[in-house]
């Protein structure tokens, strides 16, 4: 089923937590999907449907229990954690539901966090982070502690951080859950712009402001750990 231009390919991927124990949970059942390069798709489903697990596998955060996952051309299923991390930091940008910024760090320091273990010096970090913040219109907040800025600004900090390594894939987990409708529209507009720039975007959400967006190429329904084709 894999296409040569598919950025994300999952083939019969399952994920079982606590395997062999009393509290064993099957979060994903043989999920297969493909996402073309440069497209924007939405994983839609209720809480607990398996969207976040699917996103974690696509994002190389956790390996699948079985099946084949090929992300940006690399089969990941048997890769050890070290190589998953290397692949993740060069190919995936994350935007989390809770933003997951470190509130005591400045906005700029939060944005450039992924660059520290890459040995990027402070001047270069400031330059790259500054450019991204300026592009998102929050460069005036660069030296503010992240804990002191608004929700909308936090969202843009999270976007800037996801883009700092210029990854080809952007994953967003319930990105509008804590935003009002205006900010949610702004977020989707930013995603649409990134898509036009060639990024592949996967958004896990059940927010109608996201699922109704005309910029989406496709909506994938997830229910009880399966792709719902009904």
């Amino acid at each position: 089923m894999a296409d040569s231009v598919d950025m994300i390919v999952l083939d019969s991927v399952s994920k079982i937590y606590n395997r062999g124990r009393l509290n064993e949970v099957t979060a994903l059942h043989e999920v297969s999907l493909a996402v073309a390069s440069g497209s924007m798709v939405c994983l839609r489903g209720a809480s607990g449907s398996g969207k976040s697990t699917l996103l974690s596998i696509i994002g190389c955060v956790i390996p699948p229990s079985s099946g084949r996952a090929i992300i940006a051309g690399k089969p990941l299923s048997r890769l050890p954690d070290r190589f998953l991390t290397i692949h993740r930091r060069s190919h995936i940008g994350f935007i989390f539901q809770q933003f997951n910024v470190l509130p005591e760090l400045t906005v700029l320091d939060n944005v450039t966090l992924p660059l520290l273990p890459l040995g990027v010096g402070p001047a270069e970090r400031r330059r790259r982070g500054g450019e991204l913040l300026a592009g998102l219109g929050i460069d005036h907040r660069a030296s503010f502690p992240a804990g002191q800025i608004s929700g909308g600004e936090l969202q843009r900090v999270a976007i800037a951080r996801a883009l700092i390594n210029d990854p080809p894939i952007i994953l967003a987990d319930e990105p509008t859950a804590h935003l009002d409708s205006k900010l949610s529209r702004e977020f989707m507009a930013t995603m649409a712009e990134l898509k036009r720039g060639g990024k592949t975007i996967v958004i896990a959400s059940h927010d109608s402001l996201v699922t109704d967006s005309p910029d989406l190429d496709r909506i994938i329904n997830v229910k009880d750990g399966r792709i719902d084709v009904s």
Partner: protein
Amino acid sequence: MNFLLEKQLNLLDYALASLWRRKLKNLGIMSVFAGVICLVASFQFLTASLTATAQDLLAEAPEIVVQQMSAGRQEALPLSYLSSLEELNGVRTVAPRIWGYYFSEISGANYTVLAVDPSVMPKGDRLFQAVEGQLPSGPGEAVLGSGVAADLKLAGRRSFSLFRPDLTLKPMQMVGVFKPDTDLLTADLIYTTPDAARDLFAIPADHCTDLCVYVANPREIGTIAKKISVILPGTRVLTRPQISQTYRVVFGWRSGFASICLLSALAAFVILAWDKASGLSAEEKREIAILKVLGWQTGDILLLRCWESLIAAGLAWLLGCTAAYLHVFWLGGALFKPVMLGWSVIHPQLRLLPVVSTADLLLIFTMSVVPYLAATVIPAWRAAITPPDAAIR
């Protein structure tokens, strides 16, 4: 700049910022840790300094001391032995000495009474140079150690009395005191003339308690000591290296005993650190998970935690060792001196020689910083190898 160096600088920078973010918690841990290190280092410095002070003071002591033994106990020996020792090749001079102990029933203190004729001692003996005042020459004249002078409560008087074995009083006259820097050896000392000491202890006029043998070539000490054992059977022959070793053993034993107690405190601290670090707060776990998702390797997180712990523990080590130095060499090791010098009534008030070796500092570093590193890094490693997906949702 080199990639690896730049990466280390980035992690170091982040570690410093991270320590600063949790400054109250880190300052608390560092203070307790520095305190424990200060206690351990104080003992180490005190032992080294006392041993060095004793060695320094013993440097000009007689190379060999001969004592008469009977039934395993020391007793007076006849001065007739003198001539047979003086005839030995390599012997520079032999000085008869009277060395005994006087128990003061009033204060419960033990004084050391020493008598030797300065005219037969080699020139330059530091015991005589350490006297402020005169050397004893007349009947009953004595030089007192600072502890004895204080214990006798002379209060400006110079005359005092001691009891002979038959409980008659022996009148004495203080003509000088020993300088404080020799306190380790002289605090409890009464230095008097041989006649006065014989009178005090009821020793016959042609006897002494030991003979001090001074040797021309220090390399021959062992050989001459063996010869003395052969020509004077029934005597105990002590060499200066043996006496030095005794000091080392005594201080080493006391230090070891105390160090075991303090190491228990250090171990308790490390266990506490382990307990605290293994129960990483939700905030710390979340931070590790975020860093992991953002592309930090487990090794990067361990390096970060290593830097944090190294900075905190290194600073605590530096503070602890500096505080120990000030405690031992400025305040005279006030907290621990009773343990190291014994619990006698008369206490030496010596000024300690500042002796700090690199080996001591490294030993303290290894005993304190390394276990702390392990106690904090291992729990962070456990958190870092946990898949981060749950923590960041």
